[in-house]
């Protein structure tokens, strides 16, 4: 029974990555109508940016959480300005093909330079709380950043993983709040419904679209930074994940913000349980669920009919 609780918790941790990534996808699909297949590559770029920041400039994890999403977000905005914006109003397929091509190019370039096995990125050991000096007494309290773990009785929880869950929950809720509850979000949603009308109110719609894409991309990059200390920083880390994340978005309902957050966490848990009861199926369970959900409700769990 204890092991089951542990699996639930671990599932929740993976779910927070799914939630962050699918949230970005949902934002982009909801506002731009683009199925952003480059999302995995941009997630990977976030992790690599964190790696470069640390190993080339000495900027650590905490600043990387802020800088990497901005850097990759700007890259995303350039993509949107130079390529994606010309697809507005065209069939979804064009956006999908273009972003898939971009993903292949980006991943290919990184793989060419950095190989496939990846680069190391350690869990941050700063800030240090308490007495962590080398000659501190044995029983002195010392907390090195997010390193180490806690014994919860039923499992050993690495502090870093706990941090990931809390941090992504906060980011998810903040994003949902921004889009559903603020005036800026209201403009955004209006602009996707009727851009001409919104423009008539003197609002620069193309700029808003660009910023939205930047936001979605920034969320992907943020997830990348969060995952760097857990997984090796590898060129294909996004490619492996993106298909699952797409399944999450489809199950949750394309473009639904809350749907993708909840489904992200829920699927992480279901996957975790599969790893416990029948590990061999853990890579496919998400797709089985997707088929089942689509059979019963083609718009996804929380999606609205088009």
């Amino acid at each position: 029974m204890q092991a089951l609780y542990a699996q639930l918790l671990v599932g929740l941790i993976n779910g927070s990555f799914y939630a962050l990534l699918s949230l970005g996808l949902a934002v982009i699909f909801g506002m731009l109508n683009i199925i952003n297949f480059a999302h995995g590559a941009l997630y990977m770029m976030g992790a690599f940016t964190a790696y470069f920041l640390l190993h080339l400039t000495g900027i650590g994890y905490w600043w990387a959480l802020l800088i990497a999403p901005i850097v990759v977000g700007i890259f995303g905005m350039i993509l949107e300005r130079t390529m994606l914006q010309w697809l507005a109003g065209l069939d979804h397929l064009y956006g999908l093909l273009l972003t898939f091509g971009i993903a292949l190019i980006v991943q290919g370039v990184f793989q060419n330079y950095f190989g496939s096995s990846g680069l190391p990125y350690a869990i941050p050991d700063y800030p240090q709380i308490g007495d962590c000096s080398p000659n501190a007494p044995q029983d002195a309290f010392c907390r090195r950043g997010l390193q180490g773990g806690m014994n919860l009785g039923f499992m050993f929880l690495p502090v870093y993983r706990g941090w990931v869950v809390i941090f992504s929950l906060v980011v998810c809720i903040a994003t949902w709040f921004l889009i559903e509850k603020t005036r800026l979000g209201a403009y955004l949603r209006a602009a996707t419904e009727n851009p001409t009308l919104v423009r008539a109110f003197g609002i620069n719609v193309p700029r808003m679209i660009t910023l939205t894409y930047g936001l979605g991309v920034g969320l992907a990059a943020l997830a990348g930074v969060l995952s760097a200390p857990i997984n090796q920083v590898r060129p294909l880390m996004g490619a492996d994940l993106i298909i699952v994340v797409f399944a999450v978005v489809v199950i949750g309902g394309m473009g639904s913000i809350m749907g993708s957050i909840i489904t992200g966490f829920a699927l992480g848990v279901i996957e975790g349980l599969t790893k416990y009861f029948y590990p061999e199926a853990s890579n496919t369970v998400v797709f089985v669920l997707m088929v089942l959900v689509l059979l019963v409700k083609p718009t996804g769990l929380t999606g609205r009919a088009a």
Partner: protein
Amino acid sequence: MKHRISALLLGTALALAAGGAMAQDKTVKIGVLTDNSGLYSDLGGAGSTLAAQMAVEDSGLAAKGWKIDIVSADHQNKPDIGTTIARQWIDVEKVDIFVDVLNSGVALAVNNLVKEKNAVMINTGAATSDLTNTQCSPNTIHWVYDTYMLANSTGQALVKAGGDTWYFLTADYAFGHALERDTAAVVVKSGGKVIGTVRHPLNSSDFSSFLLQAQASKAKIVGMANAGGDTTNTIKQAAEFGIVSGGQKLAGLLLFINDVHSLGLKVAQGLNFTETFYWDLNDGTRAFSKRFSERMKNKAMPSMVQAGVYSGLIHYFKTIDAMGGNPHDGVKVVAKMKEAPTDDPLFGKGTIRADGRKLHPAYLFEVKKPAESKGPWDYYKLVGTTPGDQAFRPLSESACPLVKK
């Protein structure tokens, strides 16, 4: 009429000339079938193609009038794709010899095809010991390492050091199953016990659930019967979950230098595992590795898979050169290769057994602590050496039909 006769004569003459050339045919086509883009591409991939090129250059056959071509392709770790490429290579491109062919699933599939079409395979990448056991073939030589040897060397050493209860984390395909089976046998034979096992899909990124199960089992040793990206992520996440600091020991059953490089010594330090090649073993390995790394894009040192491609091809070239031409007959060439002892700077002196097993020493290494390492790629401490005739499965235990009993 006159024209017809002369045409006939000309045709006959040409056919005879071609026949004469067949006996002295000095063309070879090498196929590097590998993973060029996936989780094993650093172990083989472009590095294997480079090693093949270096072998061609160092063989000196070009100066003797040989024409040697290399083709390379990505099997994407899928047996069906691997066999499709292999079939096309043999039928259309007239490839004589396959090298690398990492991934046990692909290797076993291509092994059958190579036998059916009478080509040659020098397998340097796949681990499954079945290639020289139940699935052995007169057309295949298994060059670098196999699951039996890894289990024998690492497994035995760890049980002797007190690790008598094991839990396996196994990649769910031919290779993982073979490695787990062979290691479990060694553990039991040495007086240990296997408590449990969990099988994960190939190319997983999250191992926390599996590690928690291993942790809950309280086994002294957590054996990783996986490779490449799967192993590096397992090691990294095991550190996070405090597996080692909690008193369990992590056993890398198959680990390559590229994995250690990508993990960094801070995470990898103290791991024990077995390899048959390390760049810093002696002057011969250092000289080759230096030349190799200068030509690699990311200045990487060669893995044992890549070193094996070089070593295997050097022996192959010596053999066909001694035969005076390429007979394009796999069984014949492999039989000749088995007759002569092998000798090259990378693996030293060795032999090839009747079942296709190449014999050379196996080295048990320990990963250095960051403070002990003098620079990039200075990663291993040699802990023990097993001679070639003891490292691999003895012929008396072999189920290979080629072995006369």
